[in-house]
């Protein structure tokens, strides 16, 4: 145990006393995650090279008649996403939303949810039946009745779901802004009438004649009329937080690099004679290899822990209030991060055992890390790529990020994630251990 800890502590000290390593381990993922987080805090779809995100829309809205006017807000909302059948190719290209999404209007809500569950759609937007009725209250009873559109998202594609939410939020914001802007201008007239009795009389007459369709009181209300409620597959209400999502994604992505680099250092030490010197001591070679694996787990655990905390601080600063983004099950979160670190270190150990030189280890490790990031859905929706859909189940990123996001959304049933990560880590480590040990003896 004493020797085990000696090697582990030496490795940890090596990494965390190196300024350059710290820069790569902590600052880079933090910067990347923050930048993406800030970008996705607003509508930024047009700056992202992504298109044709599959989205399902279900419109339960019942249009209401107000005098001679028919109010169908749900229909208006869906038209933003679903292009008319006669839209030209140029129109489809020119419209940012139509280019970014590949939206279909479905009548059956269950079909939409099932499509999200099996990965056909990244998200489903479900418009309630009282959407137009609530919105029209604004014009008739002068009361605010906010409506909630449900965004049913697939947690496996957080990035793409975030884009859909950003677009939907943008549409809702425009709708909200439209009513408030009109109310605001009427509100300015009211303010003026306070010092001008003649103007006040004219306004009253106009109102009695029904010339104003908006509620005056809304001019001073900052409350949005359209709200979003995000739900995950298991039906829990989820709050979209780009810092949480990208923090988790980047932390796991960069942690894979760290695991690869930490395990790869054994090849460098082999070349430099440091490994031989360790193995020439009365220490079991198996213990030396186990210590290296556990060092990697510790280093990755500390890295992810620090990154999640730092992302939380940045996210809280951005939101202007302190909140812990990664769920309340802290113990479970710690176990999850450990399982992710274990799985990543397992993969890294098998890469190291197969590489002949540190340079070869770096290249293979880099490729595997990027591939895992892609398979984990960090860059695009893997479910749309047919055969690759199954391969993602071998990705540490897929299981790791999805477990972290689930925990953040208050869904603590991550046992299957933990099991898969542990099995992945253990099998790859045992394989790597046996191969490397054989090579050492050769």
């Amino acid at each position: 145990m004493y020797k085990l800890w000696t090697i582990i502590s030496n490795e940890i000290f090596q990494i965390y006393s190196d300024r350059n390593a710290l820069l790569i381990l902590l600052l880079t993922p933090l910067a990347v995650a923050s930048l993406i987080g800030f970008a996705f805090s607003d509508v930024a779809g047009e700056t992202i090279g992504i298109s044709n995100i599959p989205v399902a829309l279900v419109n339960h809205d019942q249009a209401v008649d107000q005098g001679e006017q028919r109010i169908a807000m749900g229909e208006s909302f869906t038209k933003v996403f679903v292009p008319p059948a006669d839209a030209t190719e140029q129109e489809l290209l020119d419209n940012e939303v139509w280019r970014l999404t590949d939206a279909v209007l479905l009548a059956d809500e269950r079909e939409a949810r099932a499509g999200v569950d099996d990965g056909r759609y990244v998200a489903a937007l479900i418009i309630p039946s009282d959407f137009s009725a609530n919105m029209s209250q604004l014009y008739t009873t002068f009361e605010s009745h906010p409506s909630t559109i449900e965004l049913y998202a697939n947690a496996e594609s957080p990035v793409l779901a975030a884009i859909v939410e950003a677009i939907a939020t943008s549409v809702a914001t425009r709708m909200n802004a439209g009513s408030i802007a009109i109310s605001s201008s009427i509100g300015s007239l009211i303010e003026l009438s306070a010092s001008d009795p003649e103007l006040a009389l004219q306004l009253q007459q106009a109102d009695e004649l029904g010339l104003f369709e908006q509620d005056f009181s809304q001019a001073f209300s900052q409350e949005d009329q359209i709200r979003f409620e995000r739900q995950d597959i298991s039906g829990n209400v989820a709050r979209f937080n780009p810092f949480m999502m990208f923090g988790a994604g980047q932390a796991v992505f960069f942690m894979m690099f760290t695991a690869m680099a930490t395990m790869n250092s054994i090849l460098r030490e082999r070349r430099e004679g440091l490994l031989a010197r360790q193995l020439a001591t009365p220490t079991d070679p198996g213990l030396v290899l186990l210590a290296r694996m556990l060092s990697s787990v510790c280093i990755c655990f500390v890295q992810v822990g620090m990154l999640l905390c730092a992302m939380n601080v940045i996210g809280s600063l951005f939101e202007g209030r302190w909140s812990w983004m990664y769920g309340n099950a802290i113990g479970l979160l710690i176990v999850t991060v450990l399982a992710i670190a274990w799985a990543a270190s397992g993969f890294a150990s098998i890469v190291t055992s197969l590489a002949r030189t540190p340079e070869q280890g770096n290249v293979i490790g880099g490729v595997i890390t990027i591939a895992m990031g892609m398979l984990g859905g960090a860059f695009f929706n893997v479910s749309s790529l047919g055969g690759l859909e199954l391969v993602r189940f071998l990705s540490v990123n897929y299981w790791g990020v999805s477990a972290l996001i689930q925990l953040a959304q208050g869904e603590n049933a991550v046992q299957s994630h933990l099991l898969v990560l542990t099995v992945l880590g253990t099998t790859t480590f045992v394989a790597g251990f046996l191969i490397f040990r054989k090579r050492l003896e050769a």
Partner: protein
Amino acid sequence: MTSLLVEAHGLRKVYRRAKAEPLVAVDHVDLAVERGEIFSLLGPNGAGKTTTISMLSGLVKPSEGDATIDGYSITRQPIAAKQRLGIVPQEIALYDRFSPLHNLQFFGKLYGLRGKELDMRIDEVLELVDLTSRRNDPVQTFSGGMKRRVNIAAGLLHRPALLFMDEPTVGIDPQNRRRVLDLIKHLRDQYGITVFYTSHLMEEVQELSDRIAIVDHGRLIALGTLRELVQQIGEEDRITLQIAQPTLPPQLLDQLHAAFPAPVRLDIQHDAEQNSTILQMFAKQGRKQLPQLLQLLNDAELEVHSIELREPDLEAVFLALTGRQLRD
């Protein structure tokens, strides 16, 4: 307690290669090393010295054969055997961003040392290699010679009975080389440490060693003290003269062969660069023949530029045994 500290029987190491014949790095080596001696393995680069040391120190598994360190089999009781040996690898095997103190603490702990005992041993070895004042400086700021000394210190921490030193003077200046060689003798004389030394530099081996094993192409081709090895090849002196004439007169050649009949050997070559003649004479007690040789040259009115007399050395032994220079 037997006087033998290291015994190797039939050590063989074969490396399989993908697209070539298997490489026999060490081929059935038998050797025995006495306690308290400096035992050197001499051979050209690639002769199998490092592989032999790696097998004896438990780093590489022999394909055949076994060895014992202080009676413990390196293949069957590796931990006990390793407790008795220290290693100074050819590379500077140190964490160079860290200080000697950090490095020695790390390796000391792997030898099972801890607490005050570890501190005491670190003080001891740093004093031995004369680096106490630099104990906290990063190794990367050290000269090559200083790094070599820390490298040696790390192998001595646990006071091993046997110290393997694999070309410990590679890449250092003459001053530091002298320090290292003196330190090795000091370790044997003051601490009774047995040193198993490898080098391709015969001057070092000749100076340090109590006994020498010569290896070539993985095989041990000679073993003994310097005197015993020299005796194996007939103990000849070599006299080399540079004569300021491109050729020697035929009459003088006849006189030389008449004056120095076999088993004395004469070798005459033209030195085109200097436009002179190199005359070499190989003979037992050759120095005693030198006055007569000079007299003959003087009588022929030839000017001698230089004279070199070399007593039999390892270079000559290696040449005689393999037909090649050690540095080929």
